[in-house]
């Protein structure tokens, strides 16, 4: 029993010292142009998905998400704030998609096309809540900003509504929906 405790303490110290050495040595490659190894990737992705799922679980989805006015509000906002990172129909890359890591997913493609398997949140409502939460709160240490400070929930839900239709829009349809110049001067 005594030996057991001793070796436990020893291992603990070893991990602490090793971790400290690693931290201070500077060998970790922090540059965005060095990809994560698969362990770090898995750790971060698991952390992100579970954190978002838990935080978003008690959101309630507005019933009028299918309203055409939401598409107009969300489309114009998307065009102003998100295109540089998340692209639009007819656009395949930007400086942000080339340089940011994690790479912002191309939201003008369906989930399957942009190479995620969103199997963990197969249910549609879960996907809507997840998007709302991510847009409102952003994601730490990635390029995704929190849009909550500055935009109320209604506007964010409208962006979520727009995202549901975005992958099927042609470039011309996208242009009409997202043009701001007469969506607000009633």
């Amino acid at each position, binding site marked *: 029993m005594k030996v057991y405790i001793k070796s436990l303490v020893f291992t603990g110290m070893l991990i602490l010292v090793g971790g400290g050495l690693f931290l201070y040595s500077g060998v970790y490659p922090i540059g965005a142009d060095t990809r994560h190894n698969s362990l770090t990737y898995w750790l971060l992705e698991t952390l992100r998905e579970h954190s978002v799922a838990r935080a978003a679980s008690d959101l309630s989805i507005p019933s009028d998400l*299918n*309203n*055409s*006015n*939401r*598409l*107009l*509000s969300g*489309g*114009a*906002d998307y*065009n*102003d704030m998100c295109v540089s990172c998340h692209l639009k129909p007819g656009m395949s890359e930007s400086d942000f998609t080339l340089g940011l890591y994690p790479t912002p997913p191309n939201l003008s493609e369906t989930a399957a096309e942009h190479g995620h398997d969103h199997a963990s949140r197969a249910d549609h409502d879960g996907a809507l809540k997840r998007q709302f939460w991510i847009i409102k709160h952003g994601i730490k240490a990635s390029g995704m900003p929190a849009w909550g*400070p*500055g*935009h*109320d929930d209604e*506007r964010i839900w409208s962006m979520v509504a727009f995202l549901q*239709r975005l992958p*099927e*829009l042609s470039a*011309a*349809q996208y*242009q*009409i*929906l*997202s*043009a*701001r*110049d*007469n*969506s*607000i001067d009633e």
Partner: protein
Amino acid sequence: MKIKTLTFAIALSTLAFTVSAQAHDPKEHMKNAEKPDCSAMKNMDHSKMDHNKMDMDDPVMQAMMKQCMKNMHHDENSADESHDDHQKDRNDHDPKHQH
């Protein structure tokens, strides 16, 4: 007393700062606002899609109609949106509005 004044000053400047960063109006985005290219929509209607396929229950279609109806009213005096054209569009779409 001094502390109180200081606290007040800090609170006030914080408030001023917060207010300046408050939710902004969509109008603030108007600087680089685009006009909807509704001529593209006419092509969609008249050549590519036939009218039976135009689904007026589809929110995307409704939203495009909203954008372009307004646009036509704005551009009424411009050459290619002449009154005739406008009228014709009306006739084309009206029956489908009725559900």
